């Protein structure tokens, strides 16, 4: 991505532009070093480990094998002696995680878009205060916020007690240890990642366009669909990716709010490195497969962006 910069820097021209172009190479060195150390190296390490043989109770033996991927995709029975069939266990876990992350993203969008719109349409002075308020809860550690959420929604927590006190329900709503609780937790954890990019997009929106649309007899709905949404779309897509991707690998919310009863991608990988199974190659393989999935999502997005820009 960063390598494309020199080609696009042709607009300015002249001597100043040439000097700038010469500097680009050296200036990019820190970026490449960062990407190399914090992205390429760890991912390559993970890729190599996923092809190694697991050592009993954690660790690896340096014998290359496809065993980890075999375990992921093929089911050979409890004792490994049956003819292989497709293994649905891990596909189900992935599907469940994708579903949870998708629902959390949708809730974030439904709440985040109006919130961002509201903030962007305040006078500039109070905008800063609203944005500040959005970030305040995030000064507290994620773990503590997740545990607090559990306290709020448990059977004899304040939410259920007050609903029962005003007579709306007679038995506590079973919220804790459900999928809904997990989605709620993910939504709560990642909401600002949705609000902030959409806010940035809406803030740039020229509201004269809305007035023009109204002058031309466009209804509010048509204005939103035809004028506003195309302009703020990049913000919405960026927000969705920023919420969806971390939700996919989250394991705090599923563990604490979902009762750790079923594996999510995150907890499945966590278990391979922390639990008694100690199957590092399998954990690495699952992480590689997850990363591939995320990459595909991002590439589809990038392609859609390019098409949109070309138009």
């Amino acid at each position, binding site marked *: 991505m960063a390598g494309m910069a020199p080609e696009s820097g042709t607009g300015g021209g002249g001597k100043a532009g040439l000097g700038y172009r010469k500097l680009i190479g050296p200036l990019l060195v820190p970026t490449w070093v960062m990407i190399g150390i914090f992205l390429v190296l760890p991912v390559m390490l993970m890729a190599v480990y996923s092809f190694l043989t697991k050592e*009993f*109770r*954690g*660790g690896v033996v340096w014998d290359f094998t496809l065993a980890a991927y075999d375990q992921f995709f093929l089911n050979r029975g*409890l*004792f*490994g002696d049956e003819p292989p069939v497709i293994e649905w*266990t*891990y596909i*189900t*876990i992935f599907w469940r995680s994708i579903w949870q992350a998708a629902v959390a993203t949708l809730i974030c969008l439904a709440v985040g878009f109006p919130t961002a719109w509201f903030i962007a349409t305040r006078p500039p002075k109070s905008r800063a205060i609203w944005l500040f308020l959005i970030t305040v809860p995030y000064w507290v550690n994620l*773990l503590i916020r997740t*545990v607090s959420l559990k306290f709020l929604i*448990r*059977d*004899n927590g304040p939410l259920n007690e007050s609903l029962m006190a005003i007579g709306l329900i007679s038995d506590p709503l079973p919220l*804790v*240890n459900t999928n809904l609780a997990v989605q709620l937790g993910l939504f709560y954890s990642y909401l600002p990642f949705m609000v902030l990019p959409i806010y940035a997009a809406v803030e740039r929106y020229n509201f004269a366009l809305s007035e023009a649309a109204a002058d031309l007899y466009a209804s509010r709905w048509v204005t939103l669909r035809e004028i506003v949404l195309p302009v703020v779309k990049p913000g919405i897509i960026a927000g969705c990716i920023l919420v969806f991707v971390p939700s996919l690998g989250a394991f705090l919310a599923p563990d604490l709010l979902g*009762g*750790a*009863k*079923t*594996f999510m991608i995150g907890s499945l990988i966590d*278990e391979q*490195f*922390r*639990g*008694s*199974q*100690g*199957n590092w190659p399998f954990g690495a393989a699952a992480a590689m497969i997850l990363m591939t999935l995320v990459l595909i999502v991002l590439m589809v997005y990038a392609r859609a962006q390019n098409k949109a820009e070309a138009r």
Partner: protein
Amino acid sequence: MKKLLSTATAFALLAGGAYAEGSLSVYHWFEYIPQELVDKFTAETGIAVTIDTYDSNESMLAALKAGKLGQYDVAVPGDYMVEIMAKEGLLDSFAPADLPNFGNIAPEWLDVPFDSGRKSSIPYQWGSTAFSVNRDVYTGDINTLAMIFDPPAELQGKINVLDSQGEVLALGSIYLGIPQCSTDKEQLKALNDMLINAKQHWASFGSDTAKDVLVSGDAAAGMIYNGFSAKARAEGANVEYAYPKEGFVVWMDNVVLLKDAPNRDNALKFMNFLLDPENSAAVTNYAAYTSGVTGVEPFLDEAIKSSPENNPPADAPKGSFIQVCDQETQTFYDAIWTNLKK
């Protein structure tokens, strides 16, 4: 929660400076040593203590194997884990003469199968793992593992299970009356099916939360360690700890000297300190288990001595230790656990 870093004597670290007698890094279970006792050790020896915590034997082993060996001086593994760690070469050994209080070890805990002759470990506390039931919710007879694995209607959907493969599979095997390291396919399948069927009645998996869910009422029954249940009772939960007729798990936690300990001498001082009856009793009074040191009785709280959790009824069966399976057998049990949690 799982990785709370308790900077026990941050003050001493700051103030000590050049006069400090060095430091000690302890890798310990959560909620298992009273802060006053740590402070007492620091006051007596001038050694600053840092404690990191873990929530299962397995995660401690995983962390040490993943590169934390050489960072800690002592850890507190359970009986079967001492054997595993010794096999993995993670333990250092000492001579009885290194610990002046070595003679205080209770005779029945001196020559134990998991560390014969006590070359690398000293007893910390011992107790049992079974389960507790909230007596406001269920009033019938609770002394059977069916409370967890085939629960009555009142408890269904309100059960917490320890998030620990060793304990869940051992209790399941005891319930079915099959050996813990079985290689019989029929028995393993039966265990697998029984657990999957039981899981529909469970609300959550959690070890460090096992007490809290009973106190808060999120769970009406929960697999738990006996002393942890006593603490739940002390915090106001109307729970009774069961000694199931099928059997239950007994365990002993041990302080081990880790290989490549950065402060080996301080580690030995700490182990010797913990073998002092008064100090060992302080742990027992805090954690509500039973000490493995002789002469603690005069220092024990009356409530601990007479607690129902520590005094099984006369007709209770003998508990069994968790067994260490060989690699091939362990693969089956790992598969059953993944199956259960998928």
